[in-house]
């Protein structure tokens, strides 16, 4: 459903993506792992239209989307749960959700129905619906960010490091939610530093290093791969330190 073909993205003179190609098929969970600064967020922002690639193409259901503005891309069915959550902290939880459905603002009751669904899936948000989003705990804010993205009924949900800075219990809950979403038919592109958990639930994965895809394979294959184990799963590090 999503095909990214050798894209190059720059920040002024910084060459952040150097010919990245990935694809995501309908119904998959695909994960993208890589060290800090590898270019994961840059890739995601390029897919969502927040950055324009200087070369290469991105197709969503055979439609070129690298030329479209972000709001068009959202309306085609791609939603982003951004790194660092990026909720509207001075607005209430409820308004945050409504903003996720901005593209459906003219459809009567759409936002209301979707809000109700989100409150069912995330009961804690119902309790906090009138509270300012900035006053939520980190875990609740992440739930809100996911719910906000789901408000537009995306076919492809992209999550950029959803486990960042959260307690293990909450992280487990978020991974559970991601699996449930897939079972209900949403395709997921998951960016993670937490490589072990991400690869465990992923069908396939990519490893990104300094703007290039250096490895790809099924989740299991990558978990077993010696390079991945050394660099991202923390095996053998103690031996390295002894040297």
């Amino acid at each position, binding site marked *: 459903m999503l095909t990214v073909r050798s894209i190059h993205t720059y920040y002024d003179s910084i060459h952040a993506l150097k010919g990245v190609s990935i694809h995501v098929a309908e119904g998959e969970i695909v994960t993208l792992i890589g060290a800090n600064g590898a270019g994961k967020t840059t890739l995601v922002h390029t897919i969502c239209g*927040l950055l324009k690639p200087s070369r290469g193409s991105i197709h969503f259901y055979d439609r070129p989307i690298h030329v479209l503005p972000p*709001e068009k891309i959202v309306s085609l069915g791609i939603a982003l749960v951004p790194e660092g959550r990026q909720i*509207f*902290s*001075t607005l209430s939880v409820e308004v945050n959700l409504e903003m996720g459905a*901005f593209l459906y603002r003219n459809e009567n009751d759409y936002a209301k129905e979707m809000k109700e669904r989100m409150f069912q899936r995330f009961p804690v948000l119902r309790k906090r619906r009138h509270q300012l989003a900035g006053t939520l705990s980190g875990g609740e804010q992440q739930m809100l960010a996911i719910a906000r993205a789901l408000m537009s009924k995306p076919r492809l949900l992209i999550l950029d490091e959803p486990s960042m800075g959260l307690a293990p219990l909450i992280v487990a809950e978020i991974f559970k939610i991601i699996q449930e979403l897939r079972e209900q038919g949403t395709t997921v592109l998951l960016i993670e530093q937490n490589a072990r958990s991400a690869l465990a639930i992923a069908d396939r994965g990519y490893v990104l290093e300094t703007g290039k895809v250096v490895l790809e394979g099924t989740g299991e294959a990558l978990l077993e791969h010696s390079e991945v184990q050394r660099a991202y799963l923390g095996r053998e590090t103690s031996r390295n330190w002894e040297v």
Partner: protein
Amino acid sequence: MDFIQYLFSGLTVGAIYALVALGYNIIYNVTEIINFAQGEFVMLGGLLAVFYREVLHFPLAFAFLASVVTVGFVGYFFERFVIRYAREQAVLSLIIITIAFSIVLKGSAMLFWGKDPYTLEPFTQGEPWIIFGAALQRQSLWVFLTGTAIVVGLSLFFSRSYYGKAMCACADNPVAARMVGIPVRKMIMLSFVLSAAIGAAGGVAITPLSLMEYDRGALLGLKGFGAAVLGGLGHFWGALVAGLFLGIAESMCAGYLSSGYKDAVALVALLLVLFVRPQGFFGNAEVGSIKRF
């Protein structure tokens, strides 16, 4: 009673300062730009209403409406063809561009209308009311009503309507707003149109009381800015209270001290606030420290 009389005139100009301050706040909230052309929108509103009424002989209500729409269009033009082309620049450069635009508006107004002040007939005819021995012009009430209606309308717009909430979202986090599919550029444009239209409404309402000429914008803009800062940049109710406060302080100063000092009141208040409480009466220090201005 002098005091009541000063109070009435203070509240009347104060309502105008509040409207100018609201204009600043709307644009600031969505873009962090301080639009120093805000005062010129008031001037244009007044003079255009005179033009529509006296030259084209529109009925007064239509002249009011036509003036507001025209100035709203000026705001659209400003955003679409000036600000948008400079959008890569730092906020400070954009603010300087708004100063340049204000000079252009003022110059054009002078070419078109000359340097004489113009007047407009009051919205309703009649003797002033006498309240506690002080005279209250009917038009003062209109100014006040216009101001209140706009404040209430804006509050509802920003808290109830989808577009209003989306504008708040752009102000809160423009990147996230783009991520959820809010067309941020359109919201910025809307903020310029709204601010311009609001300024114009204030200008039309005040012209029957205090006349209007090409160079009134700068001082109105400055005092409105004082009110906006005093109330805490970005706060609507703060702008209203601070605007009225400045108007009353000015009018008391003119009455009890000397009218020569009255223009200094807003500036002294502005300086004091900047020294003592930079976030304004209602501003939040934490939010203030995050914002760039």
